[in-house]
């Protein structure tokens, strides 16, 4: 236990992605809280958001390992990587 750290508690300020989506962390899209009045958005500490994201990546890695010994990517073939505009 390393004690209280404000950065672990308080999420960064959101930036708007679309009319309906905001983003606080890279690759993590959130519904605009203004669109959530029937079901209210929870306040989540930053560490809890990152825990859920890490857990998701662990799950996907587990699923890869479950289905095959190795994952081949286009980058391994020398023709991968994200497309510059994609």
């Amino acid at each position: 236990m390393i004690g209280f750290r404000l950065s672990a508690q308080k999420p960064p300020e959101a930036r708007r992605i679309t009319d309906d989506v905001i983003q606080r962390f890279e690759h993590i899209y959130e519904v605009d809280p203004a669109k959530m009045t029937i079901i209210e958005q929870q306040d989540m500490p930053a560490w809890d958001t990152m825990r859920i994201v890490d857990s998701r990546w662990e799950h996907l890695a587990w699923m890869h390992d479950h289905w095959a010994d190795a994952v081949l990517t286009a980058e391994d073939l020398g023709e991968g990587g994200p497309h510059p505009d994609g």
Partner: protein
Amino acid sequence: MNTFVAIGDTVVDELRAILGDEGVLIGKAARYNRTRVPAPFPVHRWAEYVPDLVVLPRTAEQVSEVVKLANRERIPVVPRAGGTGLNDGALPLKRGIVVDIKRMNQIKEVDLVDRTVTVGPGINMLKLNEELRKHNVMFPDDPASYPCSLVGGRIGTSGWSLIGGRYGHTRDLVISFQIVLPTGEIIEVGDGGGRKIRKSSSGFQLKHLFMGHQGTLGIVTEATLELVPRPEMEFAAFFHYPSYTAAWESTGALAKSGLASLGGVVLFDEYKLRYLRRDDEAYIPRPDHVRAVVATALYGTRDEVEPAARRIMRIGRESGGTYLGDEISSGDWASRHDRYATPLHGRLDTGEVVPMSWHCEDASINYSQLPAVMEKWHAITARYAEKTGILDDWGMFAYTNGAYKPWGDYLTEIDIGIWEQKLSDDNWPDWVACKREIAQVALDHGGSITACHGATREGDAELIPVEMGGGFDVMLKIKAALDPNNIMNPGKYELDRAYGLDEKVFR
């Protein structure tokens, strides 16, 4: 008209004698939790479909005794496996006894010489494959419910597998099975005789008669399954396109590649991308020129997959696709094995978020008809969304549907969110009409209503006689012959007509 009798204390005592006290559940929670499946359900009438009790057998003999008792007393019996179905096969329309088979989850034999595994119907594929991994083999049946559905339900629905293009679907991967008939006899069915025989010309092909039975012809109590070598390598590639038409043409080129290691090809339409982009499910990049996506996946030995992957990349690009990158390709593909982990919420036309359950239409449509069906399905959905205010179009996928030759027809899916809390006797008929119009389009285009879920819901079921034509009369005769008292999952597939009844699926 309901010809069934209520369950009395004497019957409960007899069931406890067969199954033990812990094998008979009469509590409210146990019964209410086994009333429905994820498919949209008339929640405003939930109480009308609660089973009278639940039994949890461990052996085929116990199942047989339960069914004999039910047949004698004219009590409806509904088998239930994982309860993950996107149709109503496991839903007790006439109450009665739900036979929950999840305690029949043993691995009985692993035969590495003749390449089979024999299991109880209550085992889950993920758990089975964890055990099989130590032998370097697997049972490659891969539904969206892979972590939570059970082998018995896969047989009951004649399931579809995400990687069926390489390994086949449930009907191809289940070699034979044991089933308790509605009168209690225990029989083995396969491709002819022989529990581990894959191909036979002896007699009728009874495995295929009972495959997809939806609980209307018996209860599966054991299955012998195919084993394949555990894949050495997986490769997934996602491409994006400037239009649906471009993506559809590329889908055809990829599916017809002839690569034996090709597990499947998946086409995402513009509505699906719009849905994925609008909130936290989004993996798909946002530029406006990304209008449709095609996903492919390969499985096999390293020697197969590496050259096949180069060819897939070449075909994808030459047919107009732009590679979406390794992170999306491998990450999103891994998530396709587990779609039930997706939190379900939808949007009103104001953009407001509301909880919604998931309707997944699953017609089989020929490749040539996909664009026209897509247009009609979205138009129908938009019309009823406007009328009811409780529907949300979540877009369409088309998945290669053929086993080993994945190019002729597609599991064609439109996902629709439905705000169940707002269902009522006023708007339920609108939902059913929407469903029926969607299914009718599939038939109008020479397709089948359902590739993998079954068509036991109102809105589907009444079109089964239309789709089956003269074959439906044969279904009625088979049902009446095997189930003389209509105890096995009554009310499904319009099979009540075999007994002179003509009821709506939901009252």
